[in-house]
Each structure stands twice: as C-alpha cells, then as structure tokens.
C-alpha cells in the first residue's frame, strides 16, 4: 500500500495560541482514518490544512503527492482528486437537490452519475425539493453527495453525521464502507466514538494540538490489555470485580452458584471510556 497523506511536525499558530503543535501522521491509501479530539483540539485546523484551505506555520504536508499549501496552477487538477464534506453549511438554499448535484458534476473530469449518487445517499425522494426545505440530516447527506460526486481518491469528512437519527447513521456507515471498498481513502473527524469504532481502521487522538496516540480502535490506550469488569448479583446487591482472567473467574463463579450466575456480565472498556481517560489524563 502506498501513502495517501504524509504529515510531519505540522504547526499552526493563531496569534499566541498554538492550535497545532507538531502533529505527524501518515495515512495509507484505502484506509479509513479517524481523527478524534475535544472541541478546540486542533482537528479542524489540521484537516483544513490538508484540504488546502489554510496555510501552516511549520512542518511538511503531502496529500496525493502535492503540498496543499503550494498548489499554484496545479490546484484544479489536485482538487479534482479529492472530495470535501465541510462542517455545516447553509448555501444554495433555493436550488433543488438534483440541480445542485448535477451542477457540481460539471466541475470534475470523472464524475459519478448524479442520479445514482442521489440514490446512494438516500435522497431520491427529495431530488426535486428545494435545499432549504431539507432536514438537518438530509442536508448533511446532500453535503456527502457533493463530496463524492467527483469520484475522489481521498474523501475528507468533517463531523459528517451530526444531526442524523440512528437509522440514517447506520445507512451512512454502509455508504462510507462501500466507498472504502472502491478504494477511497477516507479521513474522518467525529465526536461519535461508536462511529470511529464502526468505521476506522486507525484512529488518532488529538488534544491541545498534539497527538496523544495513534492506534486501531481495538488497541487504543491498551484497550485490548485492559482489565475486564465482571458484575453479578449476590447477597442482595450487585458485585463487581476487575479481572485479568475473566474466563477463569466466570468458571469459578459458575461453580459457586452451581450453574447460572444471576445478572452476569463481562465488559471491557469501550472506546469512549478509553478516550475519556486519555483526554482527562491530559487536562
């Protein structure tokens, strides 16, 4: 696999405040890479530098082999290969879904079929609706349609599922996984840890402009090595035990109860637990 995005010691200051303080990361072609972090951690600044929207104060950046901060006349050819889904927008309110998607298809040299993209994001029923009449979640799906219409090699998604109901979120995840199956590299920032867990091959946790850790969702923060919590009901109240050997402990419990253990559960820390521990450890 080759590298789609390479970032080395990226830095960006706003006045005295160092929003990005030396971030390095490398994103492989075809992977889904999630960037997690609290508000103000530097996620959006980092991603907007990768997208070519912001200049940087230091470090090197390569996206599809080009420096997004020095595109010059090659900007158009480079942008033809990427797709961007920004945070909430409210533009083009008077146009219909179909008009907008068809129009944006003109910008790219290898556009997908606009009607099948509308279908893919589940807006076929709304194709002739004015954009201002769409719900928040429908608008977001239109944003995604405009992000993928050009068959991008890299798709940037900035908090794509904000305002989605659970069903729409699941449908969106399917869509993202189908794009990955086509070979699209996906860079995702999100607040939803379950989303990162369901989609991402790797996650980077950013806080205060620095990377805390880069790992797979399953191994982040030593999650796979963490103790499991066993809980059950005994002596009229619920009991908890942290365990390195949960299987052995459950067998012993079963022997003690001669069979079924009341209200037995074995849980490992969720990605959210691990994430919150990491962020709090920082603060």
């Amino acid at each position, binding site marked *: 696999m080759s590298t789609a995005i390479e970032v080395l010691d990226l830095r960006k200051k706003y006045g005295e405040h160092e929003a990005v303080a030396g971030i390095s990361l490398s994103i492989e072609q075809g992977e889904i890479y999630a960037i997690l972090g609290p508000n103000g951690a530097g996620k959006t600044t980092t991603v907007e530098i990768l997208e*070519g929207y912001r200049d940087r104060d230091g470090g090197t950046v390569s996206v599809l082999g080009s420096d997004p901060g020095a595109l010059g006349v090659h900007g158009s050819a480079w*942008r033809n290969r990427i797709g961007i889904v*920004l945070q909430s927008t409210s533009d083009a309110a008077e146009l219909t879904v179909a008009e907008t998607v068809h129009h944006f298809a003109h*910008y790219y040299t290898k556009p997908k079929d606009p009607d099948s993209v509308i279908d893919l994001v589940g807006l076929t029923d709304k194709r002739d609706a004015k954009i201002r009449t769409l719900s928040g979640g429908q608008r977001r799906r239109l944003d995604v349609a405009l992000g993928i219409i050009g068959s991008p090699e890299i798709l940037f998604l900035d908090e794509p599922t904000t305002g989605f109901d659970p069903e729409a979120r699941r449908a969106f995840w399917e869509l993202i996984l189908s794009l990955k199956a086509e070979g699209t590299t996906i860079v995702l920032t999100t607040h939803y840890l379950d989303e990162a867990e369901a989609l991402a091959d790797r996650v980077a946790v950013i806080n205060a402009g620095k990377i805390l850790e880069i790992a797979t969702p399953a191994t982040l923060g030593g999650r796979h090595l963490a103790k499991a919590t066993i809980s059950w009901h005994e002596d009229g109240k619920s009991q908890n035990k942290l365990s390195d050997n949960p299987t052995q402990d459950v067998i012993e419990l079963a022997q003690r109860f001669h069979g079924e253990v009341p209200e037995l559960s074995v849980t490992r820390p969720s990605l959210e637990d691990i994430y919150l521990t990491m962020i709090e450890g920082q603060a």
Partner: protein
Amino acid sequence: MNTLRLGFQRGKIEIKQFLRQRESVIFTLFFPVMLLFIFGSVFKDTIAPGVTFSQYFVAGMIASGLVNSGFQQLAINIPMERDNGALKRLRGTPMSPIAFFIGKAILVFLSMIAQVFMLLLFGTLFFHLHLPHSSALWLRFTWLVLLGSACSTVLGIALAGIIKSGRGAPAVVSPFVIILQFISGVFFVFSNLPSWMQHFAAIFPLKWLTQGMRSVFLPDSYSYKEVTHHWEVGRTAVVLVAWLIAGTILASRSFKWSRQ
C-alpha cells in the same frame, strides 16, 4: 468542462437562485421602477427649456441601475455566500475561480439589462423620456452601460472582500449607495449642489455615469447647465476606465473564499 462553458453553467445557477429569491428580484428590478414613479410624479417642474425634472431623474436612475445590479448586488450577496459556506465549498472543488466570476458577471449583466429595460420602458411611457435619436448616441449609451457595469461589478467584488459579515453587508452597502445617489445628481440636479459636494462626488463613478446618461437622454442644449457647461464625455470614459483598473486590482487582492 472548460472554464468558459463552466462559467456559463455558473451563470445559469446564479440566475436560477436570483429569480427564486423574491426579495432580490423585487429589490433589484422593481425598487428602481417604484422610485421612478414616486420621484417622477412628485417633481414635475421644468428645470430648463424643454427638460423636466422627471426626465433628468430617469437618466440618473438608469445610471443608478448599473450601480444596483453590479456594485450593490455583489457587495451584499458575496459576503452572504461567504458566511453560508457556499464560497468555501466551491473553493474545495476543481472549478476555476474565473468560472465563478464569469457566472457573477452573467448575473450582473442580465439583471442590469432587465433593470435598464424597465426604466427605459416606463420612462418613455410615463415620463417623457426620449430615446436616443442617433446611432452615435446609442453607441455612447452602449459603452456607458458596458463600462459602467464592468466598473460596478469589480468594485462590488472589491467591497465584498472588505465587508466582514453577510448579515452586516446591507447596512454598509445600501446607505453608501443612497448617499452616492444624493450627491451624484440622481435625486437632485447636480449643478444645484454646493461645489464642495460636487467635487467630492466627482471622485466616484456614479456622478460621471449620471452625466453620461444625461448626455444620451437630454437635449444637447442642456449641456450648458452642467457644471463645466459641457457633457465631458471623454473625461467620463477616462474616470470609468481608471476605476475599472483600480477596482480589478482591489478585487483580486481583497477577495476571500472563507471567513478566516
């Protein structure tokens, strides 16, 4: 798709959006006609032999139409499109910025044609506006309209780059345009204004556009009532070209695709 064809596609989209916003259609197209009826009906005095104030006013309103459709429309709309994320989204696509500006120019040009046509129509029907009687005057009218629109367009884009927020844009732009109209010989006869005001107004293009339009629509004999007793057509062209160049430079420096 090449830049020119994409520019026409942008123009199509711009016009669709314009026509579907009732306020913008009314503000741009009908407001000048309403003003024409109010002022034209109230001030019917003869200001010179064979010239009524309403004729004088129609000429000024046609010049103002070029300012409305270009300068005012763009200086208000572009900051709004910057605020709602439209410009940022476009910047993230391979679309050439030139195609974007071609689209804006098409919108300005067509709304300007519609506005000038309505003013000419109602002016001749109700306010004794005389259409130019020679091809030389039509030619002058044409270059005044083209040069005036171009000037108005680039200055609108330049001001849009300086204005911080879309919500505040109308509050900055509209008073600016109205004051210009007062001091440039639209609502008042220019030669009756205090001379310091005349000198101040002469810095800006609208004064020259109104004077140019008077040279097209008023009898040639009226020129002696102008401040210099001449139409100063050559000087008008020089001032407009100078503003066009300055505006183009300003616009290319000030234009921003997003708020930061």
